[in-house]
């Protein structure tokens, strides 16, 4: 058994199981299958034709690819907003003939030719955009019609100017540069396509305009409801598409200089194949420049490779059609099953060997008693889930609730209450700063301050991102409890970076070091992570020396002390290594000791499961979350300990009738006030021995 456990310990220490779920939850994972297909195509053609990928061939191919990639990017942008643009092939041909006519017949200078050609493309796009965006015609039919009309215009222009174009000689180096020149050692068109792809990527991933397009494609109605100008966004995607198609035509004209009748015929289907093969959704809302690039490279290699192998034109189109069909099928299946797969693999438990739990029977310091029996109930059935409670100098009680309010109960009888402030998240740990402002950790939002004028101000909601983390851990997901150092620095815990507020007990199944302690420095306005890889860090309490704080790791069943100043700065000492339950908030007691809430008790069956991660993983996959084994958070108690970690007393509610579920407690003027995250009351217990004048604010800020 010991050998197996050693193996398990190392196996779970070395293999990062949780990464599978985190990678699957990233958006770029959608590129996996297109990338795989690309590699497959490259491998197939390089074995069939070893000379296919030599320098000359690649150079020639890549120049063509640059033009093609522009078309695919153009189509991708339209598809992202939920539309489709079949006229890209015709617009491409229009760009070609217009550019040739302007340079050789009209004799315009190069810059004017470029502008004129792009304006032509924009005009076609504007027609599409007005018809589809503003008049709300069907994108498919509308662009099919513009395909035909633009093609007809191209044919008419050809009839009129083809002889003049063929006969004229263009005496301009600038004209030949886009089609034949090199920039940074690469064909010009490749550089253009690459730069545009990067710009498009940045726009869609980082800018408001890009997000608007994604939102419209994802759900047109929702986008409209949140105030996005849907019609304008859709129209502009067609205009951009038209400009890019014309630009591709210009590059084509510069490269070949010929106005043929078959230019750009069937190109829209090839471009559509590339866009879909890259993983851009036909339904809109899902796609990226990277997908367009991957798809265009794949299709480019296939089309040219098949021609070189000697496949006839008909068979070539047939193969391309089959690939499009397969790509659409894979797209649908992937979209449907990704979330199922993710939900199955996201929970990834690890090996957790807790020290033996102390007994709770007679003779133990943790022995079950009935000291909490005389608890008075404040706000019974009038408050929903006060995770933490705190009292001001006028003895009013403040407590967060499940709907995001901070409730104030008025002294002295606490029968009246009001909403002190509405935060919107899930208020958890609280503390008063030197100026009397209320600092609150809000689950799902971050660290906030509620001023005496009841204004809710954000202090911080992000910290430094760790380099090796797959998920973005810069945003705060579950800020839990805080305390304030004498110099004003705020230390607060973030319980887990892998789960949201309402899923916090699921983190117990993992029991990995998913949490951290973060410091917010109001003097510099900076936030940085102090301690990482903690097992659900929860309560935080400044020690009386002003150089360190105690923190509780809930699933680790231990309390530690971290020195942030002084000779021991930067070190962590475990103070209580083996609690019989799961610790939550810590707060100061009037005699210089500390209160610790135990939110739940350890059960032998779960302790055993903690040493069998495979069992927990299968449980998370096989059975419904309501049936999962949890830590026993129905029964809790309050413990008092001193600086050395010696436990001095334990307060229980034996029957669990008066005060089930304890997540916090706060001593104030000789009474102990008790909160619970799933509870419907605040408990109040008279402490006979306690200093009847002691308050937390005095202890921290020494005010009279």
């Amino acid at each position: 058994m010991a050998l197996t456990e050693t193996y398990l310990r190392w196996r779970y220490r070395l293999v990062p199981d949780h990464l599978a779920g985190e990678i699957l939850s990233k958006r770029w994972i959608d590129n996996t299958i297109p990338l795989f297909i690309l590699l497959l195509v490259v491998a197939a053609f390089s074995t069939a034709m070893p000379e296919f990928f030599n320098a000359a061939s690649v150079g020639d191919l890549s120049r063509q690819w640059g033009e093609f990639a522009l078309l695919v990017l153009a189509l991708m942008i339209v598809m992202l907003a939920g539309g489709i643009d079949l006229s890209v092939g015709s617009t491409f041909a229009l760009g070609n003939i217009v550019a040739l006519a302007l340079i050789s017949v009209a004799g315009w200078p190069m810059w004017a030719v470029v502008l004129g050609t792009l304006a032509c493309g924009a005009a076609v796009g504007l027609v599409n955009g007005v018809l589809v965006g503003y008049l709300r015609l069907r994108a498919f039919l509308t662009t099919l019609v513009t395909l035909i009309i633009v093609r007809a215009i191209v044919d008419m222009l050809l009839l009129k100017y083809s002889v003049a174009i063929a006969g004229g000689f263009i005496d301009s180096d600038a004209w030949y540069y886009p089609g034949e020149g090199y920039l940074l050692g690469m064909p010009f068109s490749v550089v253009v396509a690459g730069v545009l792809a990067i710009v498009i990527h940045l726009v869609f991933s980082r800018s408001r305009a890009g997000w608007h397009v994604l939102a419209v494609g994802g759900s047109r109605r929702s986008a409209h409801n949140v105030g996005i100008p849907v019609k304008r966004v859709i129209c502009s995607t067609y205009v951009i598409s038209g400009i890019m198609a014309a630009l591709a035509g210009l590059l084509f004209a510069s490269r070949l200089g010929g106005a043929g009748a078959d230019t750009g015929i069937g190109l829209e289907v090839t471009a559509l194949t590339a866009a879909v093969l890259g993983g851009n959704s036909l339904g809109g809302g899902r796609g990226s420049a990277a997908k367009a690039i991957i798809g265009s490279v794949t299709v480019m290699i296939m089309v040219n490779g098949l021609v070189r192998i000697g496949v006839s034109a008909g068979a070539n189109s047939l193969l391309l059609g089959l690939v499009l069909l397969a790509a659409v099928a894979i797209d649908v299946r992937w979209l449907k099953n990704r979330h199922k797969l993710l939900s199955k693999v996201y929970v990834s438990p690890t090996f957790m060997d807790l020290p033996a739990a102390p007994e709770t029977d007679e003779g133990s310091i943790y022995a079950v008693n009935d000291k909490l029996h005389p608890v008075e109930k404040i706000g019974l059935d009038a408050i929903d889930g006060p995770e933490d409670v705190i009292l001001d100098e006028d003895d009013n009680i403040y407590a967060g609730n499940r709907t995001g309010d901070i409730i104030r109960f008025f002294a002295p009888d606490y029968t009246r209450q009001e909403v002190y402030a509405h935060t919107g998240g899930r208020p958890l740990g609280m503390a008063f700063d030197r100026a009397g402002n209320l600092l609150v950790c809000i689950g799902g939002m971050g660290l906030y301050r509620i001023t005496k004028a009841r204004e809710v101000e954000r202090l911080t909601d992000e910290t430094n991102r760790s380099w090796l983390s797959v998920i973005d851990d810069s945003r705060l997901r579950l800020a839990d409890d805080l305390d304030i150092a004498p110099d004003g620095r705020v230390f607060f815990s973030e319980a887990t970076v892998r789960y949201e507020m309402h899923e916090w007990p699921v983190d117990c199944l993992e029991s990995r070091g998913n949490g951290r302690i973060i410091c917010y420095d109001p003097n510099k306005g900076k936030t940085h992570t102090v301690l990482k890889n903690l097992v659900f860090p929860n309560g935080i309490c400044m020690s009386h020396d002003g150089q360190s704080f105690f923190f509780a790791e809930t699933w680790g069943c231990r309390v530690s002390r971290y020195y942030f100043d002084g000779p021991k700065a930067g070190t962590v000492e475990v103070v209580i290594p083996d609690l019989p339950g799961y610790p939550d908030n810590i707060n100061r007691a009037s005699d210089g000791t500390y209160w610790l809430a135990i939110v739940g008790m350890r059960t032998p069956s779960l302790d055993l499961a903690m040493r069998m991660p495979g069992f927990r993983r299968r449980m998370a996959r096989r059975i419904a979350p309501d049936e999962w084994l949890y830590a026993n958070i129905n029964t809790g108690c309050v413990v008092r300990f001193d600086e050395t970690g010696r436990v001095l007393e334990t307060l229980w509610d034996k029957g669990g009738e008066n005060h089930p579920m304890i997540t916090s407690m706060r001593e104030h003027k000789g009474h102990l006030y008790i909160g619970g995250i799933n509870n419907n009351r605040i408990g109040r217990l008279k402490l006979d021995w306690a200093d009847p004048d002691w308050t937390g604010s005095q202890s921290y800020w020494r005010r009279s």
Partner: protein
Amino acid sequence: MIERFSRLLDSFTGRGEAAVTVPPLDGALRANRALDEAATRFAMPGVDCLASVDGRLYAAAGAALAEWDGAQRREVRRVDGGIACLAECAGGLAVALEDGRVMVETGPRAGAVFDTRLRCITAMAVSGNTLFLCNGSTEHAAGDWQKDLMERRATGEVWRIDLDGGKPERIAKGLGWPAGIVAEGSHLVVSEAWKHRLVRLDDATPVPVHSDLPGYPGRIVPAGDGYWLAVFAPRSQLVEFVLREPAYRRRMVAEVPRPYWIAPTLRAGRSFYEPLQGGSVKQLGMLKPWAPTLSSGFCVRLDARFQPVASLHSRADGVAHGVTSVVRHGGQVWAAAKGDGVVVAVEDRR
């Protein structure tokens, strides 16, 4: 070969035999609070078995045998060792003891004693001159039923004894904890708890008459044109899952004290050392009735073809858990909830 492979695949994906689905409490088995809301309720710690004989209601709790006289309960006698079960025998009362003896207390055969040498009698029934006995397991005593389940044993037997003399004869073996038996003429139906089904034992091979119950079926008694079945513990997804995890089960049986096992029980939630499931977390100080639970009160009315037609429940937050015996007596349905140590009576609407 293919079968082995598909079983391996099943255990990986959680399909087929590895699936942990539990049938829903729906239709005739739809959950209610009938046992909790029963108007008649007697506290009787340890009550295990009831029998309605000749217009009298008897109840066994540990070593004590009690009888109701109107609304008054009085102890009839105390036996050496615990009482395993009660049954009607030719108009009298037969009492089976945990040491294997069967004694007839009242009726024309009063005073007769049979030594069966069985150590795990769970139920018995008399038909004509023949006594049928269920021996839950050859490995464990009746009190160790959780261990028998967690070790996934199937060593239960059914025995037949001629009341006019003759050797006991084993008529079935290899059953998964037979916990109830009903005999009518030559027909014999046994509840096979670990396989959640009722089987007919007329021939050499057991034939299921009702399978995939959402709980572990126990004692059955005839009632008019049908039967009453006590389901002593509910099935749950978590337990079904643990039953398919041999390594965890082995270590749990070896390392965890039995009251704190992940196993069905007659009464759960007494100690904070017991396992807790996600849905059982108290919200606003309240345990939800639909919470997943390892114990419940559950008895089923079966028709003549052993199909459920109605049921009585005590849900997760209820106060009549672990119903080990149910009988019809004086127009009422009486249920012994061993988990909570109460006997409740509900009006029989049929």
